[in-house]
């Protein structure tokens, strides 16, 4: 790594922080609906939406109503994407004449986009019509991200509430988040990206003759508009199969930088929005620091791994599967961020990362997608870990644990454990099942520990709603389409429902003022403990599995054995 690489990383971190701060304030104002500036600009659009749908955006919902609305809304979104795929050949905007998608694959894709996972068992350019991409996938890109932010907002309202069962209005939340944040952001980003050369057209794929005289099909389509939200909404589902490694999806170093920035921008802004909403910037600062530290740790391990691989291969680095346009540092930086952020877009194939870098990417997802995490989802997942840490530390200072002045009791702990446990359980059960089913093992492209990493990665990616693939695994089989589909559903809703339940049960409690006996949660000590709890919970759960996958592979690589 030379000084130019180091500067790139530094520049990335500074830009991210500087942009996330004001965006966080903006987002908080959106969620609290306090900004007169925002309502003046976006009010007319929103009001017409409310009128059309018969929504009263001010009507407070209790956690059960909120959850019910959310589930219905997501179910309808799923249905829309599912049906669009089944009937796309009979619908307009299908210049490439894509046929109907197989039902099992359609199920997987619909679940994938509804849950903000964007796992892609299909290849976009060959199997989906432009209508499916735009009216199905792109719409869900917005709505699933908005759903994440809504849950985050509801949870914060619950934590801050004073003896109230209302945690906001779901319909108002998603409308505001979509109209005021996601749409404007994506619009600007799409323009810049298109300016950098990302395609945006309704023309069918073009066929050209290459210099070698072979005919090649260049896939085209309305990509820029979808890529903007794919990056910003922690979705990650590429327009093309190669995702952001495809030159028409990510043409220049600048586009690469912007897409990387968008990866973490909203998740990081959510942390600052939390500080605003909780009227306690110290809390946000410590959460941001923890996320940043764990992210940086993953990045450091990945860089170490890549450069130690380079020493084995004679100083060249493992470039197979990586874009030569971006090089190792930008590939690793992207990989660390996309797995931390539950985004899942890639600019290099993760299977081609050196073992520990792949392991770090895998571990990032296994931690529960809380290192920045998905839009909104990272913060509500992080709050679960905060509550668990508060519980353990609170006991050690001899007081019933409390967070923001509210006691963390049986009910909350039950939900916290469910929310933290569910994704991990799905990963372990799914991966174990895969090892036991010969047909599932047939999908592996590599054997040995690398094969196990492929299995673990697929289940982690689905359960963590990340969506990136370790490539190499042929996931378009009934086993994976159905299994991973279920994993995505559990990974999403087995976290969302407990979070909303906590919002409900914390909301009705009255906060007590802090004293010298209460444990402060905005200190470095707490931050260190929080990071330790996150890593230890993840580590204890996955240490055996990881040791048989990336760890053993790394140790073998050092001995010169590559897979």
């Amino acid at each position: 790594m030379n000084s130019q690489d180091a500067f790139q990383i530094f520049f990335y971190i500074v830009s991210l922080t500087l942009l996330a701060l004001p965006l966080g304030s903006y987002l908080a104002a959106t969620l609290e609906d306090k900004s007169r500036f925002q309502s003046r600009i976006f009010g007319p659009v929103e009001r017409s939406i409310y009128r059309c749908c018969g929504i009263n955006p001010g009507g407070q919902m209790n956690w059960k109503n909120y959850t019910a609305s959310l589930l219905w809304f997501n179910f309808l979104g799923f249905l829309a994407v599912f049906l669009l795929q089944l009937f796309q050949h009979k619908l307009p905007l299908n210049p490439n004449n894509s046929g109907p998608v197989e039902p099992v694959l359609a199920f997987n894709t619909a679940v994938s986009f509804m849950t903000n996972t964007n796992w892609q068992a299909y290849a976009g350019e060959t199997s989906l019509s432009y209508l499916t991409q735009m009216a199905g996938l792109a719409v869900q890109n917005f709505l699933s991200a908005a759903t994440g932010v809504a849950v985050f907002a509801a949870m914060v309202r619950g934590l801050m509430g004073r003896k109230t069962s209302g945690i906001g209005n779901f319909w108002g939340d998603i409308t505001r988040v979509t109209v005021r944040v996601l749409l404007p952001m994506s619009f600007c980003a799409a323009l810049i990206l298109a300016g950098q050369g990302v395609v945006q057209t309704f023309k069918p794929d073009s066929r050209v003759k290459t210099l070698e005289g072979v005919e090649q099909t260049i896939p085209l389509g309305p990509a820029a508009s979808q890529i903007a939200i794919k990056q910003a909404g922690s979705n990650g589902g590429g327009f093309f199969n190669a995702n952001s490694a495809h030159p028409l999806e990510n043409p220049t170093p600048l586009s690469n930088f912007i897409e990387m920035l968008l990866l973490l921008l909203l998740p990081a802004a959510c942390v600052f929005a939390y500080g605003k909403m909780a009227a306690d910037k110290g809390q946000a600062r410590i959460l941001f620091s923890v996320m940043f530290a764990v992210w940086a740790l993953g990045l450091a391990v990945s860089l170490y791994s890549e450069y130690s691989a380079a020493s084995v291969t004679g100083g060249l680095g493992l470039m197979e599967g990586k874009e030569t346009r971006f090089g190792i540092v930008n590939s690793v930086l992207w990989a660390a961020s996309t797995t931390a952020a539950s985004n899942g877009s890639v600019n290099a194939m993760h299977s081609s990362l050196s073992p520990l870098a792949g392991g770090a990417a895998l571990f990032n997802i296994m931690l529960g997608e809380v290192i920045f995490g998905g839009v909104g989802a990272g913060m509500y997942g992080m709050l679960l870990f905060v509550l668990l840490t508060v519980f353990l530390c609170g006991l050690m200072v001899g007081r019933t644990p409390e967070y923001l002045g509210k006691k963390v009791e049986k009910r909350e702990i039950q939900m916290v454990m469910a929310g933290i446990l569910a994704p991990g359980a799905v990963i372990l059960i799914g991966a174990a099942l895969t090892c036991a089913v010969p047909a599932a093992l047939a999908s592996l492209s590599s054997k040995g520990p690398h094969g196990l990493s492929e299995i673990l990665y697929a289940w982690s990616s689905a359960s963590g709603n990340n969506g990136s693939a370790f490539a190499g695994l042929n996931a378009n089989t009934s086993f994976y389409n159905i299994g991973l589909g279920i994993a995505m559903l559990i990974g999403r809703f087995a976290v969302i429902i407990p979070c909303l339940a906590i919002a409900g049960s914390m909301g009705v409690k009255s906060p007590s003022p802090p004293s010298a006996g209460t444990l402060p949660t905005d200190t470095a000590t707490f931050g260190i403990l929080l990071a330790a709890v996150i890593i230890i919970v993840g580590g204890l759960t996955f240490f055996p599995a990881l040791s048989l996958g990336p760890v053993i592979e790394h140790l073998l690589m050092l001995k010169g054995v590559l897979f």
Partner: protein
Amino acid sequence: MDKKTFWDKKLVSAALLASLVKLNPKTQVKNPVMFVTLAGAVIVTAGIIGKLPHVSGFEAQIALWLWFTILFANFAEAMAEGHGKARAESLRKARVEITARLLADGRETKVPASQLRKDNRVVCEAGDLIPGDGEVVEGIASVDESAITGESAPVIRESGGDRSAVTGGTKVLSDRIVIRITAEPGHSFVDRMIALIENAARQKTPNEIALSMVLAALTIVFILAVGSLKFFADYSAGAAGQDLSAIVTVPVLVSLLVCLIPTTIGGLLSAIGIAGMDRLVQRNVIAKSGRAVEAAGDIDVLMLDKTGTITFGNRMAAAFIPAPGVEERELAEAAQLASLADETPEGRSIVILAKTKFDLRAKELHPHEARFIPFSALTQFSGVELIGLESCPARKILKGAVAAIKAESSGFPPELDKAQADVSNSGGTPLAVSDNGRVLGIIHLKDIVKGGIKERFAQLRRMGIKTVMITGDNPLTAAAIAAEAGVDDFMAQATPESKLARIRAEQLAGRLVAMTGDGTNDAPALAQADVAVTMNTGTQAAREAGNMVDLDSNPTKLIEIVEIGKQLLMTRGSLTTFSISNDIAKYFAIIPAVFGALYAVKGGQGPLSALNVMRLASPQSAILSAVIFNALIIVALIPLALRGVKYKAVAAQTLLRRNMFIYGLGGLAAPFAGIKLLDMFITAAGLVR
């Protein structure tokens, strides 16, 4: 509790027996962590039986230690119960044998103690056991209460006053007292104490339930981690073309599972709860529920009665302020003479002050040389008239309210007027002294704050607890005492309504309020408070309103109760942290042991043996060491669980760092050392291959 009584032989043998009885699955199922351990032990044992007559020494030892793990946990719980029950049982036994001397119509009859009803009167003399809970109505005696409190120094119990309550089963050491029985059979202190200890074993407190939930969840995680490991191992073995079936066996996987699940805290959890109750009982406090004890640790505001808690009940002489031209010694002498016959605490305190300040011995005055003038509400003074003899002239020394002495004197120096106003303003009471109508000066009487109380309040402040003094005094007096005692706030001229309103206001602000009280008019406030400690000497109404009763009727006991509550949670938290930290070392022991040979080239070591950082001798020895460590650590921590983690009154942040350091980092390091030592021992003894 010293070492000798802690590991008392009888107690230990009873606990050993109980730990076998507790193997009953019906008992174990209440504790998910230990239930999983039990299931593991049964599976491994069944596997061994299934392979009879061939027995693997390694598997047999694993099975043995798994059973020990459960027995050790049972033993911890039994020890905790034993300590509490031992006291209760001996009392229960004692009570059955007691014969009471029932006093009815002036005649004494002997009846068994169990036949005593409420309001019966009984006589006890030196050497008698007190037959039931009651109140001394006649006489004074020294009583040995060691049977309940463990405190061997005798205490004084006398009629009328704060020290009138006696407890059944305690022994009168001197004198004769008449006791009015206050408890119906079956509702005595002992019965309640036994119920409390047994409840602690049966019913979990809210925080204990929440923690159990975390432990159960962790157990599920580890079941999945270990269960899936079997599949990953099979895959890896297939991929490497190796046969791992000799090492990835059911006993090994069960060992890994039991080592990982939090058996340390799981095994000690109920012992911690019971021991907490026991500590409370040791301090002579009966809690109506374990919930109240936990709540005590969360207290934000402490409301304390001034009288008896912060100050001694009575005002005492603090200074002599002489009139101009009068020696302070002369004033002291006169004041002492005037108070010699004054048996009130104030009077006695004047004699004592004169003695300590000027070494004036109290003179013996004979009736023929002096006539005492008793205090009356009408005159507002008292004093002494010395009959004139050759040696000294006749004197009439008076002391009393300033206005009253003014009226009896031939003039009042203006300097003293100012002095008496100062005394009043500082919350004290001025008493004037005159000698034959000449005003000598003023005695400053004031509420004396108990020694050491200020430090206690400072301690509470560091714990984050605000103290509020409640008093019926006027705001001026109250402010002066509050400042001297170092309380954070005070309530002057408090009425039952204003106390109740204050508690409600604090609670509305989200604070948890504790209060001590004894009178009937405290009952509403006590009922409203989150933690209410009533004095055993208090009225029945107050006792029913509170959720704890202090048998010693010592109002500062609340501070100790708070500490017990905090200690209870801290012990749970610390051992949980310790238990989880342990897992890291266990992974480093077992994973390389099981998979060290995976992907090995030609009999060499496989890559994962690099994780064997402890350099354990062999796979079998590594696994067995981890299992043995896991079992022994429970026994090693029993004393800590029963005594509780030490609580220090420092800020939460400091406490957290300290406990994190000891139990977090300690928990991380301890098993590395322990497992290595066990491995060396096992290898040296040749217990496994």
